[in-house]
């Protein structure tokens, strides 16, 4: 029998956090001569193929690892020259005067990335770097998804990557395992050790990249309002990339009352807006994709940032700050901090208190400060549901009528005292001016769903050119999913539960949340002997994990796939 596959360090997920960790660790090992073996497993067949992100980012962490990132070939689409925060009516757009745009939305100077390109570059350069080091062994395993966490007692011992039936052949053991995944696997760790007493809040980010006639490089818009006016916490974005490319997307929180968020349909409605229609005039769609985003922030952070034998990084930890729409630099920073600590730990062969030291370093640094400062951000909207449910739609309406200021004022005058108190309180929370550390409890996303909730009708411009609007099956084509034979990566735990759910929504005349909120035409209803049952077209799945999060009865689980199967987001 062959000896077990063993490394000093195992990185789960080809993510920004893990790749920065590896780069920094290799730099440190190059100086110290520390002998080190590292394995990196990634579920997509090629690095970057399962990566979707906005992505605007500050480059301060990147610069710590690559002081020459501007000239060394790191792929950057440009830098933000004009940053707008806009309110959309169904026909008009109102750019807020710069003076009243919250600081977190002023993105001038930020780098614009196609993150999938950046990830592939980081992975390639990492291998080049490792080749030059005689004291470091780096093995990368794209196309091998970590499927299961392996434990030795209460210590994380490694992961199992596939199910050939022979555990000794499928297991990677390591002194330390770093989880830089989006929760596909780290959720098991979080659950086993009950690390997250306050649940994570998730949103789904959905995005298209277009090649257009207009050159908008460096111009970015963040939008509020149309097409989501049902009170759901959400926003749109349009980023001008290099080479006349345009990223158009929506971020929709999944802790909505609305059981039918229809993210892909919403994105089409967003694109039907006359302003975006003008931007994409003469253009063509290059890529489509979606991914979930952890946005609970401070209150959703785990109690411990790791356990014996493992650390949580990036999105697995949940360091994204929803108030400033920034997660990438913080993800990278978790990798950077972990690398520094791990290097010391491997030199001393001492892993004691590693998770505590890591937590302290993260929370004492800028991540902790930013997340703490904006800790009330989501609470502001959760506690004041009229903000998005009534106030925002009223402003949107007045935007269409051409007098946004007046509209805002008129709404405020309706019930002046109540509305101004609410608004001031909410603003205080949003801007971090209200202090207080009382733990705010989130409810898990699916518990917010009210089956009977009916969204107000959205007026969609009828002028949109039909060739720019895609049905959901057509959109899937642009995410290019490919699956191996016999793939079954979404588990349905109990078919009876699905049947009951279908019955509830059938009575209401609505699709179930899994069907409506799927970004890729996976979930469906099959008629089996007169009974309506839940079915899935798994070959369409682009692995965003939304269905798992919105399933009202927690009856679905999206597992990482085998054999590098899944979408190809390279270019998003």
């Amino acid at each position, binding site marked *: 029998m062959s000896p077990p*596959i063993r490394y000093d360090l195992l990185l789960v997920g080809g993510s920004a956090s893990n790749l920065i960790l590896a780069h920094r660790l290799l730099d440190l090992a190059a100086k110290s001569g520390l002998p080190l073996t590292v394995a990196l497993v990634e579920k997509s067949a090629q690095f970057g193929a399962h990566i979707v992100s906005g992505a605007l980012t500050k480059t301060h962490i990147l610069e710590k690892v690559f002081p020459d990132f501007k000239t060394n070939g790191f792929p950057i689409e440009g830098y933000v020259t004009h940053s707008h925060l806009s309110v959309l009516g169904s026909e008009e757009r109102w750019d807020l005067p710069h003076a009243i745009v919250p600081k977190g939305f002023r993105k001038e100077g930020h780098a614009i990335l196609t993150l999938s390109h950046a990830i592939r570059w980081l992975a390639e350069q990492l291998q080049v770097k490792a*080749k030059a080091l005689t004291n470091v062994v780096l093995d990368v395993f794209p*196309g091998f998804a970590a499927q299961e966490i392996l434990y030795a007692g209460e210590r994380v011992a490694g992961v199992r990557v*596939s199910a050939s039936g022979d555990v000794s052949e*499928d297991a*990677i053991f390591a002194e330390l395992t770093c989880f830089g995944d989006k929760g596909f696997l780290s959720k098991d760790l979080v659950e086993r050790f009950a690390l997250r007493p306050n649940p994570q809040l998730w949103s789904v980010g959905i995005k298209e990249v277009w090649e257009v006639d207009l050159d908008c490089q460096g111009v970015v818009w963040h939008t509020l309002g149309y097409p989501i006016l049902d009170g759901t916490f959400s926003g749109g974005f349009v980023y001008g990339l290099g080479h006349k490319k345009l990223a158009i997307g929506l971020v929709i929180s999944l802790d909505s009352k609305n059981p039918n968020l229809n993210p892909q349909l919403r994105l089409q409605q967003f694109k039907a807006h006359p302003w975006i229609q003008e931007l994409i005039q003469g253009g063509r769609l290059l890529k489509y994709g979606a991914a979930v985003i952890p946005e609970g922030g401070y209150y959703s952070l785990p109690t411990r940032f790791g356990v014996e034998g493992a650390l949580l990084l990036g999105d697995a930890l949940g360091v994204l700050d929803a108030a400033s729409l920034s997660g990438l630099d913080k993800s990278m920073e978790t990798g950077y901090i972990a690398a520094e600590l791990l290097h010391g730990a491997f030199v001393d062969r001492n892993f004691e208190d590693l998770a505590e030291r890591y937590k302290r370093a993260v929370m004492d640094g800028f991540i902790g400060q930013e997340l703490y400062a904006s800790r009330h951000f989501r609470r502001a909207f959760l506690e004041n549901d009229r903000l998005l449910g009534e106030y925002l739609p009223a402003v949107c309406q007045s935007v269409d009528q051409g007098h946004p200021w007046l509209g805002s004022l008129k709404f405020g005058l309706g019930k002046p005292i109540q509305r101004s108190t609410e608004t001031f309180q909410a603003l205080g929370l949003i801007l971090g001016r209200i202090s207080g550390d009382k733990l705010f409890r989130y409810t898990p996303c699916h518990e917010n769903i009210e089956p009977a909730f009916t969204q107000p009708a959205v007026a969609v411009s009828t002028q949109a050119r*039909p060739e720019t609007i895609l049905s959901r099956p057509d959109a899937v084509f642009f995410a290019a999913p490919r699956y191996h034979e016999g793939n079954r990566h979404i588990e349905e735990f109990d078919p009876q539960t699905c049947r009951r759910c279908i019955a509830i929504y059938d009575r209401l005349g609505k699709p179930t949340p899994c069907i409506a909120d799927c970004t890729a035409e996976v979930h469906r209803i099959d008629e089996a002997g007169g009974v309506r049952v839940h079915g899935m077209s798994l070959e369409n799945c682009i692995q965003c994990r939304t269905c798992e999060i919105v399933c009202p009865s927690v009856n679905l689980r999206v597992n990482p796939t085998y054999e590098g199967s899944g979408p190809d987001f390279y270019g998003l």
Partner: protein
Amino acid sequence: MKIFVLIKQVPDQGAKAGINPDGTIDRAKAKRMLNPFDRYALEAALHARRLYGGTVTAISMGPPPAIEILYEAIAHGVDQAILLSDRRLAASDTLATAYALYCTVRYAGAFDLVFCGLQTTDGDTAQVGPQLAERLQVPQITYCEKFEIDHSEIVARRVIEGGSQTVRCPLPAVVTVANSAPRLAYKTLRGARRVQQLQRDEAERSRVIRTVNLDDIGADPVRCGLKGSPTIVAATEKVGEIGGNCTLYQGKPLQQLVDDVLAAQVIAPELVKR
């Protein structure tokens, strides 16, 4: 059990292949891949090892980049590999190729089974496997889709027209594997790790992947390459690309799209049923 599997690097079917002025394929320019038929042979070889133990040696003949498919074979679990690479082999036909491979197999030592793909996607002759068996003077089973070893005999099911046939012959033997046989399993973790280890460690690499030339294997250069090939390529005709016009009918209700397509009169009227 000593198992050999013969694999070949072929131009990627998805990419455009270049044609030399003499009509042969420009292998340096073409994007390359493991011959899809060889994937079944590889699976058969690995399957035999799983059931009956032993080692699998992958053998390939080709220019130096062919090492890519040997790495691929190792990622799938092959133990070792031999690459026969020699400029004098250029433009070999099936006879010369089978001779060179015969010399390589002889050089590799005693064997129980040699698995080959049914044919390649570049030459499409399906001759090399049978020719090799003749040279080795061992029995051959072609179009094999299932087999088992029963005391030093192989019992195999062959695909024949309209059905299948079960045959039995003593080992050693040459088996060409049909593409109805089990598909190649995904690469293994240990294999993927081994490949990276070999790419780092030159000494280990030259031990595991032996690169040999005609002199190493004791082949007669006159019987190889263009000189050893009785086949003469009389002419190669380039199939022209038909640059058609493509109209995309989209963005309207289905009925209107159908009307548009009919109005364009691109479908023969007798095929239209309303």
